[in-house]
């Protein structure tokens, strides 16, 4: 859920990136954390905006495109 006091992106800083990297078990030194923060600062607001749109009630039935599709049963194979 988007918090009322932020812009939808949250503060993407070297510090928050470093914290997230720790959670992910990804070693990132200070310089790399800053570079990743610069990149994610461009991506995260848009990703959060899309997430917010996808929370619409009218879209609730949509499933992610990651679910398995099963092949149609071969004729006569159903019991």
């Amino acid at each position: 859920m988007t918090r009322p006091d932020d812009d939808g992106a949250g503060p993407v800083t070297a510090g928050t990136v470093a914290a997230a990297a720790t959670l992910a078990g990804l070693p990132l030194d200070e310089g790399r954390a800053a570079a990743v923060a610069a990149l994610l600062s461009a991506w995260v607001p848009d990703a959060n905006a899309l997430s917010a749109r996808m929370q619409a009630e009218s879209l609730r039935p949509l499933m992610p495109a990651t679910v398995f599709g099963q092949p149609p049963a071969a004729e006569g194979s159903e019991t």
Partner: protein
Amino acid sequence: MTDDVVENTLTGSAELIAGGALSPVELMDATLRRIEAISGTHAYISVSAEQAMDVARASETMIAAGHRLGPLHGVPIALKDNIDVRGEITTAGSKILADHRPDADAAVVRRLRGAGAIIVGKTNMHEFAWGGTSANPHHGNVCNPWDTSRMPGGSSGGSGVAVATRACAGALGTDTGGSVRLPAALNGVTGLRPTIGRVSNAGVVPLAWSMDTVGPMARTAADVAALFTVLAGFDPDDAGSVDRGTVEYSRDLDRGVDGLRIGVIEDYSLHHVQPAVEKSVRDALEVLVGAGARTVDVTIPDIEGNISAQLTIEAAEPSTYHQRWLRERPQDYGDDVRLLLEAGELLLATQYLQAQRYRALLREQATAALAHADVLVCPTLPFAATPLGETRVEITPGAPEDMLSAIMQFTGLPSLTGLPAISVPCGFDADGLPVGMQLIGRPFDEATLLRAAAALQAHTGFHRAVPPLVTAAS
């Protein structure tokens, strides 16, 4: 012996070989000389000269004995270097896989060999296919043959350059977010992204599993159709492969576009593009309308958001595949790819899954648009080839944008929806750089895309234009 034989199209060479009018050995010899002549473009990572000549000699012997393996008998084909060839190193454009020698051919390679094609070498690419410029710190930056100070697009940049310079008759690329279509457009060749699941990915180093597909590249729609006919089909070794019937894609190429409905997507198809790109696409549309097609307006209400969804998915999935190497060998990645992989690890699962839900929404809306149109049209990308090393591009003068996002502006729609799309040459900008038009089709209806592309090529000569580098090399 001259190198003129490499000017033949793929289908032209195949026909000449079948009729005994062209020797596979002569063609391969000329191709290898052309590869050498354009080596400064860094289009190839490895060339199997000796092996290819051995196979060419065997092909010649077979033809002389009246035996033809298949429709590509004796034709030199290049493979992007993320496609496995038994016993040959497959680097995926990386240092990480510098010693990776697969013990089996990729499914698409087996199909090509079965049709008589000769694998001539492996082409350069953006490292692990994660980027759109084919700037590669390990194997050299691939250069555009229309202006070697510019980039060729990517990630299948080497394949695009090899085709444009006649350093192969046709090539395979892989396309996740546009990696076949982008280099096709920027190098003035034709490239097809098939319906997802139509061509096997078995034996291909993945980028993003849910969007990856192999795709053919060649100079003409007829050549692409010939390659695609060989490549398409079910493969039980690929979990994403779809068991749908295929057809002989060359069959209806000459049927024309009379009555074809070309959907122009409101506020998208010709929106936010460089003027020369817009003009080229509009001119091409006029050509198709002159040949009997008609344009119809369609809408995809939620098209905005496609770039973000693509970035999220295309970042998260590779970061999963690379998780171990990123911890054990981070220094062995190029700077740009390492940064993308690190960033992709930190996206949230909810952001990723909302992007995947957005794909379902986008597919619904694209399918609805395709109920009113047979194909959808837009540029392949909104700009022409940029200088090597640029990370930003100006589509609107004075407003530089991030290259990675900008380059995905139009290729994301098919990538996210799994729909097939083709990039076909449709003009040149004022600097003589090629422009590509993208046509998007219904699921498994690649035949209509190929037919429309062939119709455009029947009325224009952009696909026959020769890059300056080729003129210099000839």
